[in-house]
């Protein structure tokens, strides 16, 4: 019997679900890291003192798995800078000081899309990376088509993280863009089944998608349970198609392309206007936000500008996250920029960041029961206590540590408040190191 994976009840906190996005005034300056995606950093095309316009390419893809970057505002390029990104590395960044004009570059024209190759090129040139948060360059995903692997496209509209509603608003307010995006895929991919997964706590979005695609028999809406983590890639694939992505394989290996609904809406709009990825709809919410909003923000805008626009009291800010509370990443400084992958800024006050004390594991099994991937987090903890690093890595690998997607269910449900995901992250890094070491030994 089929039953949905992912069953952790987490308070939804979707206060902004009914709020269409508002555009914030363009910021005085932006700071654009050249690494906002998985893969090689982009290489700068502009230097200090250059004048740039909105939509002008300022950095070129730095490799095959990479993505170009465009100016989100018009103005003058400042001197070279670097910024500490959440991965803990310093990466080069371009600062643009606004001229207040928001003049659009002449190069912004609708792309020429007539076959798969030109479509892929356009996707690459658009600067699109997975907007669900992972930041994988979308064009690279499309290559599965070339290998003749794809038969199903799964569109991620689950938006299972608490607070975030930017995808919800995309489905409701930009249904036509989503439709244009789907039509593009239908035209250029051989997949004949399109299914969008939406959690049942978004009835308006479900209705809008059903209505928009009513006459398209290749398209269906899968209503998912409103339990976390429906939006996890492998969980979403299983819950919408029943297919299981084997360990170490990609969705394409089971014939599936997964694309976020906002990514798709962006593609639809890009094909019409040619305006590359220069702005994002960002949900600003959290315990420290009195008046939450969905805001359209130029990429590179300092977070503090966005929070000021929403009216967050500066004195209340204790912790800021890129993304939602389950998988979001702590921001180092409020001056850090909004990125391509930023779909939300979750702001905590001092009171709400306090966590209960970590105590001994009582073996209750909640982590096992709630792991959507069927892993046993307590085993990983036991393994990590072993002294021999190689033995550790082998045991961890045998128990499928690499299947952990760090969704956070185990840590969330743990009554002893143990740092289970944190342990898994450490364990995954060790297994990576071990495998690299083994590869060097063999090579």
């Amino acid at each position, binding site marked *: 019997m089929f039953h949905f994976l992912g069953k952790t009840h987490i*308070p939804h906190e979707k206060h902004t679900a009914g709020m269409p996005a508002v555009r914030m005034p363009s910021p005085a300056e932006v700071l654009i890291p050249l690494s906002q995606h998985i893969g090689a950093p982009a290489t700068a095309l502009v230097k200090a003192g250059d004048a740039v316009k909105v939509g002008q390419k300022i950095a070129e893809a730095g490799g095959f798995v990479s993505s170009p970057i465009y100016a989100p505002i018009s103005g003058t390029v400042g001197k070279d800078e670097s910024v500490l990104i959440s991965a803990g590395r310093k990466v080069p960044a371009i600062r643009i000081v606004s001229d207040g004009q928001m003049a659009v570059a002449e190069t912004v024209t609708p792309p020429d899309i007539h076959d798969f190759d030109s479509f892929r090129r356009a996707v690459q040139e658009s600067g699109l990376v997975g907007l669900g948060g992972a930041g994988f360059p979308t064009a690279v995903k499309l290559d599965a088509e070339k290998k003749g692997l794809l038969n199903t496209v799964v569109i991620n509209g689950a938006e299972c993280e608490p607070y975030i509603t930017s995808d919800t608003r995309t489905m409701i307010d930009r249904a036509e863009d989503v439709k244009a995006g789907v039509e593009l895929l239908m035209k250029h991919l051989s997949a004949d089944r399109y299914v969008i997964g939406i959690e049942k706590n978004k009835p308006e979005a479900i209705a809008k998608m059903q209505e928009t695609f009513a006459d398209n028999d290749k398209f269906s809406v899968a209503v998912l349970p409103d339990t976390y983590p429906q939006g996890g890639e492998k*969980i979403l694939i299983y819950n919408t198609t029943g297919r299981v992505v084997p360990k170490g394989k990609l969705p394409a290996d089971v014939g599936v392309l997964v694309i976020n609904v906002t990514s798709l809406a962006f593609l639809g709009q890009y094909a019409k206007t040619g305006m590359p990825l220069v702005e994002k709809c960002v949900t600003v919410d959290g315990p420290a936000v009195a008046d939450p909003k969905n805001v359209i923000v130029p990429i590179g805008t300092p977070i503090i500008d966005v929070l000021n626009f929403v009216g967050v009291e500066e004195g209340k800010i204790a912790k800021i996250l890129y993304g939602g509370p389950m998988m*979001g990443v*702590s921001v180092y400084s409020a001056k850090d920029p909004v990125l391509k992958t930023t779909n939300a800024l979750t702001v905590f006050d001092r009171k709400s*960041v306090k966590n209960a004390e970590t105590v001994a594991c009582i*073996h209750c*099994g909640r982590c096992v029961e709630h792991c959507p991937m069927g*892993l046993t987090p307590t085993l990983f903890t036991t393994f990590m206590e072993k002294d021999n690093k190689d033995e550790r890595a082998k045991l961890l690998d045998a128990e499928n540590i690499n299947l952990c997607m760090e969704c956070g269910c185990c840590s969330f449900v743990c009554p002893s*408040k143990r740092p289970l995901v944190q342990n898994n992250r450490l364990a995954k890094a060790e297994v990576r190191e071990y495998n690299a070491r083994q590869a060097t030994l063999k090579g």
Partner: protein
Amino acid sequence: MEKLIISSSPHVKSTLTTRRIMLDVVISLLPACIAGCIIFGWRALLVLAVCTVSSVLAEAGFNLLAKKKQTVGDFSAVVTGLLLGMNLPVEIAVWQCVIGSVFAIVVVKCLFGGLGCNFANPAITGRVFMLIAFTQTAGIAFPTIVDVTASATPLELIGKENAVLPSLLDMFLGVRGGAIGETCILALLVGGIYLIARGIIKPYIPLVFIATVFLFSWMYLGSLNLALYEILAGGLVIGAFFMATDYVTIPITPVGKLVFAFGCGLVTCLIRFFGNYPEGVSFAILLMNIVSPYIEKWTKVRALGGAAK
């Protein structure tokens, strides 16, 4: 604005804590404790109080002497003390209660590393220890630990000729011989249902345990009526709801929990029908505690996309 707090995800946690779980277990035991005091009189309260207080003091004392972090605040010692007291006959000597509690807490739990590290249920092991250590103690107010009040326990009566069993209703309400907290099935069920409703225990563990005992008894005794006595008598209900569900000492995997519950039921019947003791629940749970790590190993959850094991 001060410096931002940096931490690793997830940034929110459920409100359920270990302390809260233990508190819920304490709450769930109260109906049966109250029933025990009504049925067996004020001395039942004394036994329960002595066991609970000695358990808490034993843990606090051990932590002090061993220079460990004080853990009595997690209420687990209260649970152990209460459960142990509930499993004792009302006439038991106070000094024996103290020794049993100290054994349960210090030897079974603390010496293994404290809460979460013990491999056997402290209350059950404490009870079994007392059963063995104090059976021969002559001149004390009770002949055997399972044989209490004025009459023999129903389990001893089953199968004996001319024995008059209490009515099934008396069995259900607990008006019969037995340990303080085990006789009033009604009160135990109220507590058990509370734990299930609070999401603390899985209903299938007690259900499978009790159903297994029921089925095997029915098959062996050939009487539906006697099979009903078998599940109402002895420590089955208290064991199934409150001891076979002890997180620490049962398998962590869902299938493992099922196997564990079935095993408990099977061993209980084997002891009851073929062993020297009329009651087998404590021994059954203790035995299954010991094999739990192996059950866990054999019942691993299959990972999504992982190879079959």
